[in-house]
């Protein structure tokens, strides 16, 4: 290496270091894969309109909170409530959850099972399946086939909502689980590849291979997983989709939060398959 190259290298390092010190105002967001589609689409539109750089990262509700609490991001996305443990660990900060929409967690089964007649399940049946007490579809009116139980990672908001409402304990361990999955996308894939699976998915992820079953209540009422039932509050396994901000939120981040709650921002919540919070329920039809 001659002197010129050496000088060039030193120059390059210095200029990179200088370049690195000027941090432009960016808004960074991370967390739940359930909330992500709506926020990410809104961020894209906001960025195009206002030139504000917004970076959106996946990772799950747990990591969304942690990164916000540690100051690595400006906004966390959570599809569940903040736990007491989480609040206690970062007691020096104030966290405000803001609901941007509502979602349903739907018990889903493989299309083969749905077509064979399992179109509805009760909480007790689902509890038995996840606890490993029922392991054949014929026990719940389906074909004679072993149930393939798909569970989600324990920090997932989808799992905590489902387990809290259906099993009565959001931390419950699923002794019957055969496979554990991280994101909604990954779960959708695993469901599609199986022909005897049960899982839990956000409403927006249902399709012809992954069918949502209706819920049978204790008094025998059947509730279908539809946007309408979520909006009018009859569907039992529903939750708020939250973004969480810290007390010391930057003006740029606050601007985006306001946008998310505005009618324009809420459009992205709706076309991602969720129920917007700032729109009257009757506007949901079509």
């Amino acid at each position, binding site marked *: *290496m*001659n*002197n010129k190259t050496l000088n060039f*290298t030193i120059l*390059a*390092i210095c200029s*990179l270091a200088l*370049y*690195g*010190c*000027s*941090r*432009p105002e*960016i808004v*960074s967001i*991370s967390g739940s894969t359930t909330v*992500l*589609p709506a926020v*990410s689409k809104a*961020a*894209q539109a906001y*960025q195009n309109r206002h030139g504000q*750089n*917004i*970076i*959106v*990262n*996946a990772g799950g509700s747990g990591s969304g909170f942690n*990164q916000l609490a*540690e*100051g*690595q*991001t400006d906004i966390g996305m959570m599809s569940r409530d903040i736990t007491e443990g989480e609040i206690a660990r970062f007691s020096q900060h104030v966290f405000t959850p803001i609901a941007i929409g509502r979602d349903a967690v739907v018990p889903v089964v493989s299309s083969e099972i749905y077509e064979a007649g399992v179109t509805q399940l009760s909480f007790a049946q689902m509890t038995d399946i996840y606890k490993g007490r029922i392991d054949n579809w014929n026990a719940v009116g389906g074909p004679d086939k072993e149930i393939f139980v798909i569970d989600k990672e324990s920090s997932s908001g989808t799992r905590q909502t489902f387990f809290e409402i259906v099993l009565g304990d959001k931390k419950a361990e699923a002794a019957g689980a055969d496979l554990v999955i*991280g*994101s909604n*996308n*990954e779960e*959708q*894939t695993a469901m*599609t*590849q199986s022909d005897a699976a049960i899982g839990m998915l956000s409403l927006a992820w249902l399709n012809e*291979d992954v069918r949502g079953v209706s819920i049978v209540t204790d008094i025998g009422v059947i509730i279908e997983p539809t946007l309408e039932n979520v909006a009018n509050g009859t569907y039992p396994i529903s939750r708020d989709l939250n973004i969480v901000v810290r007390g010391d939120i930057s003006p740029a981040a606050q601007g985006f939060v306001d946008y998310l709650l505005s009618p324009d921002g809420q459009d992205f919540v709706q076309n991602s398959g969720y129920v917007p919070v700032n729109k009257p329920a009757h506007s949901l039809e079509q």
Partner: protein
Amino acid sequence: MSNVRRYKRNIGDKVFAAATRGALGLCFAILTFLIGAIIWQGGKAISLEFLLMPAQDFGASGGIFYQIVGSLLLVIVAAVLVLPFAVGTALYRSEYVSSARRKRLIDLALYSLNAIPSVTYGVFGLILFVNIFGTGISWFVGSIILAMMMLPTVTITAYQSMQAISDDYRENAAALGLTRAQQIRSVILPQSLHGIVTGLLIGLARAIGETAPIMFIATAFSGVSVPRSLLEPVASLPTHILALAQQATNPDALRNAWGASLTLIMLVMLFSMMAYYARFKLMTFSRK
């Protein structure tokens, strides 16, 4: 009796030969399948548009432009960072240390660095930079960690090329009254330039394919374009493939995952070929 034994040995020999041939055949079958699948599937996805368009719809449509840019930015800054340390360490090991014990110690450190699993580098980066130094998830941290991973490769390649320099050169330089610093500048560095460049390129080829070290500390899922500073996250090809692979039953996402994979492998090959070229071209150049 001896005929029976001979017969048995003969059979054994045939079986053995067939097994070795079968094993090699299997290896080539696996190779053909791997390369075939990547080229066939990736080829269907790659177009100029795919390479030059930003990702849309979480990668399921659009292209991989910012992922390519991000991956290159990560490894190029890593190369700039690793260069002075690798050359310094190689010079020290080659020109300054005489005690065998100290040499072994340096080797041990380098081999250990090489053996550390990539995910551990990610955890280390997360602890030290993202949390203790509070840098946040950023391009710069990713580059530092990749530089650490490249260090053993670059150092060892550079060192080997320094060792390959004939001692005649050193003795002649010393006889001319050159100081150690002058010897290094006018003899050692020019004569080992090919090794340094080759090592750097091999390091680049390896680093660009890494996922585990950067996925917690350097990359973001969406909304990333060309970073405006070293403290912003970047997009990268490996983490993009990871996100797309998780939705493998969505045919559009899967197609783009293959396209990104083929692109990534072509970048790896590009660096490898440049390393190959550097080894010979620069060597003959420096030996002139």
